[in-house]
Every structure is written in C-alpha cells, then in structure tokens.
C-alpha cells in the first residue's frame, strides 16, 4: 500500500547480448510489443506501485535511453526534486578518459545517499511482466528479511546466465547458483530485489572498496552469507529476454490471448512515450491475421502472426509472416518476409525476399536499405 521505496533499474546487462539489436542501444531500450521498450514494463510496475523516484543506471549506451525517457513525463516521473534520474557514466572534469564502471557505481551511490526512502527496489530490465510490488514489499517488511528476491519456476531454455535460488521450505535462500546443470523444480530469480537503502549503500561501498567494477547483486549476495535472503514467488506471466531467439519467441507469445491479457489488460497501464501518430489505415485489399499493429501504419498487403510497430508501411502484394517490424520501416510492394526482425527505419525495395527460421530469425539492422 504505502511503499517507502525508490526504484533502481539497471538498464544494461553485459552478460546479455542481442547482437545487432543491442549494439547501439541499451538492453532496456529494446523495442518490444509494438509500441513499448523493455524498460517501460519495469518503470510502469514501479510507478503503478506508487513509487515516485527511479534511477536508471547505464554504462555507455545512454543516448537511446535518454531519447526514450526524456524528462520522465510519460511515466509521470517528471518531478521537481525526485522523479527520474538517468545515471550516465561520470565523465571526469577535464578528461574524457575513464568514466567506466566505478564511475557508474559512484553516481548510483550519490543518488542513494541523497535520497530519503527507506527501501530500494532494484531490478534489471530484461524481464517483461505487469504487476505491482505491493505484496512483495509487504512480505519483505513483515518477514524481516535483509533482501527479498522475486522468482518463478518458469526456466529459460538456455541456462548460461540464469540465477537459481536454493531455498528451505520457508523460501529462505540457502544458496545462489549461476547457470547450474540440474534444474528440476528450480526457482529462477527474476532479478528484482528489495532491500534497505542503507544496506545497498553498504554493499555497494564494499564492492567499490574491493575494486570491483561490476554491478552484480548475485555476486554481492553470494559473498555476504550472513544476509537473510527471502525468495518471493511471482505467479503471473513473465517473458524472459536474454537472446535474439528468446526476444523473438517472447514477441510471438504476446500474440497469445492470455499473455496479452496478463500484460496489457489488467488494471495496471503500461506507460510509454507518446508519439502522436495518426490512426492506422487498413486499405482496400489488405489481409491481416493474428497480428498486433500499432498506430500510424498503412497496411496494403498480407500480415500474419506478426508484430508491427508504429508508422510502418506494408506495401501491396507483400507478405509478412511471423515477423517483427520496428517503427518507421517501409516495406515496398511485392516483398516476402518470414521470421524476420526488421529494426527501426529500414527500407525494403520492391520484391525483396527474406526468410529465416523461428530459432534463427533474420535480423536487419537499424536504418538498413535492402
């Protein structure tokens, strides 16, 4: 109900790469589900929980995030003294060198130290789900845990970067494993934790003192074995994105009615930047099936099992099947696309044919002219 906490989102994750899709943008800035970016979901979850102060930690790809987040207005986080803080690297006064990771952590520490909230909800941005943290927070406070961590039992296909929690029957964490082989009935961390602000300051300062240059709560928690860590189950739909393949399959899952309902049609709005596009126009002769299409599009051709972002044109006699087409792309007449991810602002000349496989979708980089 009354969450006395601020939010902190780690917008980048060096362990995860989505190839060309994250080469020039932070993972958190990855477009998703037609009109969102990944960070919209976590930001909305925090805001819908009544949190009014959120820091976004970036390393070096902060431009895409700054463009998207702006002053935080779209999430109602444009406030006078609190609101949204984008924490880009600390470029030191007279040199452009360094900055780097410890710089990131000191900026985070500065923000934490000048805040007055009792708790911090710390999270990545690569899991997509819609919820509030009311119960999670309440349970954390009531149980008297040092750290509480959200989990579910829906494991990702690949295990390399997965954090598995070993707990007792009361869900108290006994062990934290990263990418274990055996995963029967495993509890997978969703990378969302709540802890006292003061404790986070201590843990971070300790890491900095040890000369560590990476912000890994997993590592930190494994070191501090005296901490009482509680695992809290998340019951809803959660899409996990850690590779191009899982990004593609997560998108296809969004077309499913129950997933759409869980993500978008609860009482909790998912906020994102407003673009003021016109309505989408379905022209005579178009043919659309099992697809999501955003505002500002013009559809003349055939679209099936696809996710179409804003202001896309699908030309006549073109077939788009099982594709992700990002904002402002233009697909000319007579093209044939299947299992393709088209990044923003691409232009496909008439008659282009691109066919991938569901497990290996063809990825076309931003602004490409094909």
């Amino acid at each position: 109900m009354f969450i006395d906490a601020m939010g902190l989102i780690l917008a980048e994750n060096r362990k995860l790469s989505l190839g060309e899709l994250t080469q020039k943008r932070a993972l958190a800035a990855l477009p998703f589900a037609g009109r969102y970016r990944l960070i919209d979901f976590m930001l909305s979850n925090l805001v819908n929980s009544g949190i009014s102060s959120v820091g976004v930690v970036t390393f070096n790809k902060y431009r895409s995030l700054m463009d998207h987040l702006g002053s935080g207005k779209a999430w109602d986080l444009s406030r006078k003294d609190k609101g949204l803080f984008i924490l880009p690297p600390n470029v030191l006064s007279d040199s452009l060198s360094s900055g780097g990771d410890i710089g990131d952590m000191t900026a985070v520490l500065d923000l934490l130290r000048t805040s007055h909230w009792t708790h911090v909800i710390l999270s990545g941005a690569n899991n997509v789900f819609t919820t509030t943290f009311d119960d999670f927070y309440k349970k954390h406070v009531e149980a008297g845990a040092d750290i509480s961590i959200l989990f579910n039992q829906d494991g990702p296909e690949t295990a390399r970067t997965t954090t598995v929690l070993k707990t007792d029957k009361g869900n108290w964490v006994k062990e934290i494993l990263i990418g274990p082989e055996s995963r029967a009935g495993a509890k997978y961390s969703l990378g969302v934790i709540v802890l006292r602000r003061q404790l986070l300051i201590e843990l971070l300062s300790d890491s900095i003192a040890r000369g560590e240059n990476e912000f890994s709560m997993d590592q930190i928690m494994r070191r501090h074995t005296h901490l009482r860590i509680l695992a809290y189950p998340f019951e809803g739909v959660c899409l996990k994105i850690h590779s191009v393949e899982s990004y593609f399959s997560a998108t296809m899952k969004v077309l499913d009615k129950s997933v759409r309902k869980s993500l978008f049609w609860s009482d909790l709005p998912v906020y994102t930047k407003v673009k003021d596009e016109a309505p989408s126009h379905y022209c005579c002769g178009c043919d659309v099936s099992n697809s999501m299409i955003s505002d500002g599009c013009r559809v003349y051709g055939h679209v099936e099992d696809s996710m179409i972002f804003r202001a896309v044109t699908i030309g006549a006699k073109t077939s788009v099947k099982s594709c992700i087409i990002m904002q402002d792309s233009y697909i000319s007449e007579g093209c044939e696309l299947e299992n393709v991810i088209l990044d923003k602002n691409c232009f496909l000349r008439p008659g282009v044919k691109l066919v991938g496989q569901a497990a290996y979708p063809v990825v076309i980089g931003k602004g490409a002219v094909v």
Partner: protein
Amino acid sequence: MARRDVIAMILAGGQGSRLGALTKHLAKPAVPFGGRYRIIDFTLSNCSNSGIGTVGVLTQYQPLVLNTYIGNGQPWDLDRNDGGAFILPPYQKSSRSDWYKGTANAIHQNAEFIDSYEPKNLLVLSGDHIYKMDYAKMLRAHMDKNADATIAVIEVPWEETSRFGIMEADADGRIVEFAEKPAKAKSNLASMGIYIFSWDVLKAALVADEADEKSTNDFGKDVIPRLLSEGANLQSYRFSGYWKDVGTVESLWQANMDILDCPDDLNLYDRSWRIYSRNPVKPAHYIAKGATLQNSCLTDGCIVEGDVDHSVLFHSVVVEAGAIVKDSVLMPGVVIEAGAYVKKAIIGSNAVISRGARIGYSSVGSSPYLSRICSDDITVVERGVRIREGAEVPGNCMVEYRDDIVGDNVIERRTQVR
C-alpha cells in the same frame, strides 16, 4: 512568435444540441473524432503548431470531460510557464455573476484574463471545426495590412451561401460588406468563424456592444457589423483546404468518413503539422485470424475478430467474430458482439451492441427512437447503453437512455462509462 503578439480564445461554450445524445454528457468540442482525436484537438494543435502558447477555452456547458481532457495542456505542448491552456468558465465577480451570453459576451467577461497577458492581438476561434491552418500566416497578413480585424474566409458553393456569414471584399481583400446568412449573396466567401482582432480595437467594440441593449452579443451578428459600420479596417484572409463544421450528426459522420479517404489537405500523417491528442496508453491493436478489414482506421487497444468495412474505430473497440461493421464510427470501448450488424452508425463510448442486434439495418422502419436530428439514414447510439440481443434499429434513429426503459425492446441497460 513572441508571447505578446497574440493569444487565442477558443469558443467552446455551445451546447451542441444538434448532436443530440452525443453531447448529453460532454461539450461539443470534446466529442471524439477521427479515431484518436476529439474535435477540439484540431484547433488546439493548430494553435500549438502556429507557435501560439496561450490559449483560453471558453466553456460553460458540461465542461468536466473537456476540463480533464485538456488538463495541463501537455499533449498539445501547451504546458507553459507563462501561458498555456486555460479552461475559462463563467465565475462570480464581487458585484455580479453571469453565465456567458453570446460569443462576444464570453470574450468580454474574460477581458481581465486577456489583459493580464497584454496581447497586441486576439485570435478568436471556434472549438468545433476540423481543419489544419497556420494562424501565424494569418497574423502576419493581419499585421502587414495594419488591420483592425482579419477574418478568415473560404469559398463555399454558391448554393450554400445562405447558411454562412458572407463577406464581400475589395480587390485588396478589405471587407466592404458583410451579410449574415443572406438570402441572396453577393459573394461566395464565407466567414470561417476565425478572427484576429487588434485587442485594443476589440476591447472598445466589446464595451460598446455590451452597452447596446439590442445586441445579442455575438461576433457575427453584432460586433463585426458594428466595426464595419464604424469604418474599421476589416481584412479578409483567404483559406483553401479542408474545413468542416461538425455541428450536425450528418456532418460529423461525413467528416469521419472523409478521414478514410486520406484527403491531402487534412493529412494526419504529416509530421510537420501533427494533430495532437490525449489518449490512454493501450497496447497495439490485435487482428485475429479470420477477421477482415477494408478501408478502415484503427487505433490502440482494438481487438477485431469480425468484419470491418469503411469504418473508424477508436481505442479499445472490440468487434467479435461474425460481427459486421460498415460505414460506421465506433467510439472508445464500444463492443460489437458476435453476429451483430452495424451500418452507417455512430456508436457512443462503451456502448455494447449485443449478439445478433442490427443497427441501421434498413432505411425504413418504425422505431420510438426515430429522430429529426438524424438524417441520411445515420443512426446514433448514446454512450454507455447496452442494446438488447437481436434488437433492430432502423436508420435515422437516436437511441438514447431514459430513466424508464422497462419493457424497452432496444435498450437493455446502462453500462459503466469510464
């Protein structure tokens, strides 16, 4: 544009009774239009795109929706520190309290507000027109010609001149005669109800107009003729392009259908002159397998499983499998249930057309809801009513909720409108 060059006042006070049930709960400028807009979005966006940062919206009839819709003005870039968007209802002064009388009286009652911005000129606009226009160009013309007032005019077909205020202008564009709805017009230049006044001149004219007991305190009927008779420098400003007054059910329906033709002079995809609006954040719309869509507009949050042809769907509209929608306007949250048939209708927000119901199925038929407000076989359904399963409503009906609908064979009950 410098702040003191001009501020705008939008007349949004009319009850809009010719729109019937559509304006029962909201002012006409707040009526949804064109898939994701409300009527006033066009005027507000024109102001913002023209660089005008202070806009007063004069309203007194059902302003709640308009008030919360406009809010801080942010969607139109009108959340300014010095200026911005203001809703200006009538208020009690220490000596007296009046509702607005005519259009001119509404401006007169807000003279103190206008004065506080010390504008050189005042742009007076109507809140219920659909068009894109650069007021900065008109202001430039006004200033270049050193005019006391400049009136935007548009050519209308000669046979329609009797519906408009008609201007006769000399070769230089100076207005020499003005006739309100003339039986026999000397010109086909109609006033668009868009005026730029030098504020000093207008202020004096308003004081004189208020003192005149015979005046109806209206710009077209009283103030403009007064200025003309006093020899003021009244200039005409020619506009050509899409412009439509959406004051009637028929013109509102027609203007929505016009959007589907993507007219060049009302290009909603033009990023250099966007029409802004405030919208709830909804996901992209979803088109199911088996749905068909032809020549239609959709916005966020729609779910289409049935057949939609030549129609405008606002956000969060649901068209279930087997339902057919033709030549219609479905406002936000409308649900067309399986097997229902809707033709040439304007369905108000959150209304539900139950299974098998038929709206506008025929141009003839009898119904207690037949209405003189509706014409051309268009049918209107009030927001938030649920039409009974299998009910039949012919064209030219205005389906309105009344407190006593026991035994009504069209409306089942009221739904909740948010």
